[in-house]
């Protein structure tokens, strides 16, 4: 028996009699609980902004890019020229980041190196994008046997250790900014190709389903407004996450002597140069390039992660 029945009897008496009349209904119930629907990109933007760490990453990236552009102009020094008598000076008011063993100003070199490292990173990401999109797009679009063969090829290449192949390529080519970009792109496009192919296949199946139901030109509109935004997501995330990999690879190559050649400075070569003076008190030689590389990779990694979470359709409110 319902326990609350006894207690409530008394309360009922206090209710005025005239309330016992039927209510006028005018069918307004349904609309209430519909939440306003938010566009895909807006929703993703909201989610991204909520992710504090990802926002931090984005801010860092922007700062890095700005400093890379204006940094070398902030000092009167040139990244190539050094006054030998000034070698290995600690940071001071004249040399904000100190000097290296050839007396060159570290601050200028660090931001010049930023240009080089970031350029390599972005260039590699874009070229991989183009190769990957072409290959993967073609494979997915054609489908069938062509797709099978192309993907088999990719699977085999996928098994090769990426850095190893890059090293071999660099041994063969003359190390330099452009050859590094080429080597990285030639090995890194595979991931992008797979993603693009997957997206194209999805698009295709959606389009056919739509086409069978809807007539005429409206299919392309649906593709543009709904499907394309959804499929761009993983592609953008992949590009963002390629950059730190490229920066890492460039630094790695520098440590093998396969990096950019003097006098061009990159963060990798500067870190490598610091190897010889580890047992000295010249901490600025190591710390500045190390921090730059780490910060940049950190920034792109967390931003890329945040982007991935924000664009994940499964997590929409």
């Amino acid at each position, binding site marked *: 028996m319902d326990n609350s029945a006894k207690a409530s009897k008394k309360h009922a008496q206090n209710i005025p009699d005239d309330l016992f009349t039927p209510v006028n209904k005018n069918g307004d119930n349904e609309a209430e609980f519909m939440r306003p629907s938010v566009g895909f990109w807006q929703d993703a933007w909201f989610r991204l902004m909520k992710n504090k760490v990802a926002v931090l990453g984005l801010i860092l990236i922007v700062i890095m890019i700005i400093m890379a552009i204006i940094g070398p102009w902030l000092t009167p020094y040139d990244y190539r020229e050094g006054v030998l008598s000034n070698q290995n000076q600690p940071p001071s008011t004249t040399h904000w980041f100190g000097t290296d063993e050839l007396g060159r100003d570290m601050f200028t070199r660090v931001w010049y190196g930023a240009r080089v490292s970031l350029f390599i990173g972005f260039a590699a990401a874009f070229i991989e994008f183009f190769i990957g999109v072409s290959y993967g797009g073609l494979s997915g679009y054609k489908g069938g046997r062509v797709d099978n063969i192309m993907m088999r090829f990719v699977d*085999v290449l996928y*098994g*090769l*250790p*990426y*850095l*190893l*192949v890059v*090293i*071999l*390529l660099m*041994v*063969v080519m003359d190390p330099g900014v452009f050859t590094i970009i080429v080597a990285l792109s030639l090995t890194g496009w595979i991931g992008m190709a797979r993603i693009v192919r997957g997206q194209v296949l999805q698009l295709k199946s959606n389009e056919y389903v739509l086409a069978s139901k809807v007539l005429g030109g409206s299919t392309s509109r649906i593709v543009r407004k709904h499907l394309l935004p959804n499929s761009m997501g993983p592609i953008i995330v992949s590009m963002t996450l390629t950059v*730190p990999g490229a920066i*890492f690879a460039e*630094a*790695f190559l520098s*440590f*093998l*002597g*396969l990096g950019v050649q003097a006098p061009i400075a990159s963060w990798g070569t500067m*870190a490598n140069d*610091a*190897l010889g003076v*580890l*047992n000295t008190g010249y*901490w600025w030689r*190591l710390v500045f390039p*190390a921090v730059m*590389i*780490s910060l940049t*990779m*950190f920034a792109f*990694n*967390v931003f890329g992660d945040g982007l991935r979470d924000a664009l994940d359709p499964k997590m929409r409110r």
Partner: protein
Amino acid sequence: MGVFILKRFVAMIITLLIIITLTFFLMHAAPGDPFDFDAEGGISAQARENLMIHYGLDQPTHIQYFNYIKNLATLDFGPSMVSRSRTVDSMIANGFPASLVLGFTTLIFSVISGIILGVIAALRHNRMVDYVTMIIAVLGISIPNFILAMIFIKYIGLQFDFFPVARWGTWRHVILPALALSSGPIAIIARLTRSNMLEVLNQDYIRTAKAKGISPTRIVMKHALRNALLPVVTIMGALTASVLTGSFVIERIFAVPGVGRYFVESISNRDYPMIMATTVVYSAILVFMMFIVDLVYGIIDPRIKLHKKEG
């Protein structure tokens, strides 16, 4: 099950052959020949020709290729072009023990620490421990291991005698290099384990276990862990690859007398046979690891094992 093993084995051999072929033709595509580095002022044309014949470099490329493969089958990597007195195999054999110790220690340490960190973070989801662990993980992925290595040397190794930074020999020599090399793998494993654990803990069968009154320890150890760790096994192949390539630079920085160090030297010297040999050896190890991973995965996931049996 036998068919499964066989298919994997064949795939392994094919990948290896492709790598070897690629390396071979790449090396031979390099401009110049190994003798440009020799004595100052170059060597006489006759001497060069003799050397070419001696090393079989006068043969057409595809003949050289077949000879090479033939030799490989007997583990003959040929002589080093730079170090006249030694063969490549002896150099690799010399360096092998140190690299093995470093690599092995790194892998074991990474896997165990990574899993423990990941599990703890998942169990204390959204609390301080979780955030701290995940930040450490992100740092581990973002700070390149060679940068970490240099920082270790400068601020730990050179400060405290306990951690020797030169030469090799005692277990203490292994700590810093292994730690540096582990930073990436630990981070990756921790993140993966954590997200897998979180997903598994949300599964219906965990709810069933709780409804049976099973203790939380047993739920984690017996029910959750096995399911969460399966995906970790699959990345072991890629992880080994990164440890392998990472070891080149780490060995160089810490002056560990391993194969990696020889590899780096041979790159500077353009010692092609050495480069090729080390590439082949590394690739073989890698491909073999992936093969083992496939096997292990097939064994521990009962769904695959039984599927093969019923076939």
